[in-house]
């Protein structure tokens, strides 16, 4: 029975691979660990090694022909002279197109071919990709020790990161409880014990269950990264004051956030990747520009947060955005929003500026590809025209889905945003 060698999945996103060079030919003897071929993936050129001893019986894929992951690329005879034709599963001599059905488990061909059951379980629990683990057991078996060492290394890194970033909170939108969870626990542990400080549990509200599920899903499935920029807020704040003074008699009171909604929406219409979703095998570019604004709910309504939708925000004036935003905030806090009022966002803004937060990072609100975490406009020493002055600056941090938006695209978007924010007159037209 010949061993079938299939196109391995060498990266998370790899669907197709191309043999650049065969290091063996039919009849060659190979041992476990020998180089069989160079394979070009979507990311890099990687080496394919043999996991078994035997003889190359057939080569089914020619150099330069892209084939799907899982396609038979060669067969290995375990004993010399074994005739492939006698094997029950007579292998095709030409390229076999495997349907898209379940891709072969990565362990069949990738690095971690053998994994002890407890190592597999621990890897799952800690979210470790087994293909990336070098096994130290016999025949490269991944064992408990390998996973625990990785976990220990990761924990150290995380702990270090937490101590250096203690001022930066990572939350989606305005959800204070999420960010507070860790520090609060520590404080409790240090505080003297008294009867009313005992641990207790409270069942999750429906909203908290949804938040927990969606955010874990988002953080685990979306390759997040962040890009931050500071903005000179003096012109915008000045214009806001002027407009609010002039329009007070007609009940218009524009917030900084209203300006940001319009800025983000306009920037989205010129940077379409920011109005898009990752669609598995495609990128879905949305027509309408719907900006979500995260609204924290009062404790008496069970806390948590919702994201309200300002539909077609790029088509709406500041005044309309302001009215809608105020209406939705009030309704969210008092009676709750309808599905229509919460759905279909294509981008989200989370603003903690009103709480005095300098800067933070947010978790993407799927199926959005980006979320903007906005800090407070703070008076600080700034350099303007080569002179030191006091100015108001705001820091905003984008969290992005790297599957849709690359770093340079994020920078372009922030540049557009910066032009709009720092030259706010353009928002009026």
């Amino acid at each position, binding site marked *: 029975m010949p061993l079938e060698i299939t196109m391995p999945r060498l990266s998370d996103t790899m669907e197709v691979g191309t043999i650049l060079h065969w290091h063996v030919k039919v009849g060659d003897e190979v041992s476990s660990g020998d180089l069989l071929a160079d394979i070009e993936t979507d990311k890099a050129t990687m080496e394919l090694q043999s996991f078994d001893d035997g003889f190359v019986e057939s080569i089914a894929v020619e150099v330069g022909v892209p084939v799907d992951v899982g396609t038979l690329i060669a067969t290995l005879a375990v004993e010399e002279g074994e005739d492939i034709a006698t094997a029950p599963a007579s292998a095709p001599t030409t390229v076999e197109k495997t349907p898209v059905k379940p891709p072969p488990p990565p362990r069949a061909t990738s690095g971690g071919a053998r994994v*002890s*059951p*407890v*190592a*597999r*379980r621990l890897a799952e629990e800690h979210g470790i990709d087994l293909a990336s683990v070098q096994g*130290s*057991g*016999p025949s490269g078996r991944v*064992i*408990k*020790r390998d996973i625990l060492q990785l976990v220990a290394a990761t924990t150290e890194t995380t702990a270090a990161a937490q101590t250096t970033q203690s001022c930066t909170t990572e939350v989606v939108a305005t959800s204070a409880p999420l960010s507070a969870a860790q520090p609060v626990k520590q404080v409790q542990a240090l505080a003297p014990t008294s009867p009313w400080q005992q641990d207790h549990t409270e069942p999750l509200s429906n909203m908290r269950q949804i938040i927990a599920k969606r955010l874990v899903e988002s953080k685990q499935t979306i390759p997040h990264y962040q890009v931050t920029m500071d903005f000179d807020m003096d012109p915008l704040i000045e214009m806001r004051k002027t407009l609010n003074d002039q329009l007070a008699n007609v009940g218009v009171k524009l917030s900084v956030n209203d300006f940001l909604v319009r800025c983000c929406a306009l920037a989205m219409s010129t940077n379409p990747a920011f109005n898009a979703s990752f669609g598995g095998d495609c990128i879905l570019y949305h027509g309408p520009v719907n900006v979500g604004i995260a609204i924290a709910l009062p404790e008496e309504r069970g806390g948590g947060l919702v994201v309200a939708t300002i539909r077609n925000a790029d088509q709406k004036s500041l005044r309309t955005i302001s009215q809608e935003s105020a209406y939705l905030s009030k309704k969210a806090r008092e009676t709750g929003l309808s599905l229509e009022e919460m759905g279909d966002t294509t981008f989200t803004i989370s603003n903690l500026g009103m709480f005095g937060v300098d800067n933070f990072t947010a978790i993407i609100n799927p199926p959005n590809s980006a979320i903007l975490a906005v800090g407070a406009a703070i008076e600080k020493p700034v350099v303007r025209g080569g002179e030191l002055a006091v100015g108001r600056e705001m820091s905003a941090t984008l969290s992005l889905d790297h599957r849709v938006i690359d770093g340079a695209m994020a920078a372009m978007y922030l540049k557009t945003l910066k032009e709009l924010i720092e030259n706010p007159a353009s928002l009026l037209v």
Partner: protein
Amino acid sequence: MAVATAERIIEFRDALNEAMSEEMRKDNRVYLLGEEVAEYNGAYKVSKGMLDEFGPRRVIDTPISESGFAGMAIGSAMRGLRPIVEFMSWSFSLVAADPILNNAAKMLYMSGGQFGCPIVFRGNDGAGGQLASTHSWCVESMYANVPGLKMAIPYDAYDAKGLLKTAIQDENPVFFLESERLLSTTGHVPEEEYTIPFGQALTRRSGTDCTIISFGRPLHFCLEAADELAKEGIDCEVIDGRTIRPLDIDSMVASVKKTNACVVVDQSWSFASVGSEIASQIHAYCFDDLDNHVFRVHSDDVPTPYSYNLEQAYLPNSRKICEAVRQATYNA
């Protein structure tokens, strides 16, 4: 126990004697029979003084005819007595295999519940030391295969007394496997009445890296190995199963779920053995918790050698256990 008593150190054989004597004082249906148990005070002096106390009607010397006296005792158990049958060695029980396996173990079932068989068969099991292959039998794997019987293997004097009393009180046939090598060992046995329930394993040593499961004499090798391995930084947990039927697999599973590695040490031969049964159950219940397959240490797969050196090498000794643990924990 209301008061903590001072240490009362006695020999394993005296603990067995106390268990039998105490139960015989409480219940006049209990009696002892076997070769040399009465006039000679027992081939291994386990029944010392019992003839004097209980007289020849309850401490009975038998001819050298295991099949005959085992069968007679089983008949008396079916009719209401509670015999203790001493086999000088379990090796000799082989000639009584038909009554003890075909009658005692199956009586309750085959009589449709009309006859039980509350009987204890006890004696030395395993290599006694240069007794050669026919007199060094470990019968546990062979006999534990039979449904309808219970089987206990004491590790020390305390367990010998507590488990034997439970055996005598049990309504089922109990195969009680002692070791000639342990009879002279001493340990604390309290003055107070106590019994040890069947089916409750005991952790003889706590550890985090590897679970070692065994019964009876090999446990001493296991603890020796654990001390040796501790010097290498391998922290073993040693579980004394105490009874093979019933088997406290839950305690063993709980330990393996903690350590993720397991070595079973069984002094019988490896093929179709108690060790293979436990390994199989651990594989089934701990599949996702194992970092390696269960390793087994047995007596070597040959008849027991007479030569001292060969016999030592043949047993599931500390060296073999250390090697197995190192392999199971990827420290080989």
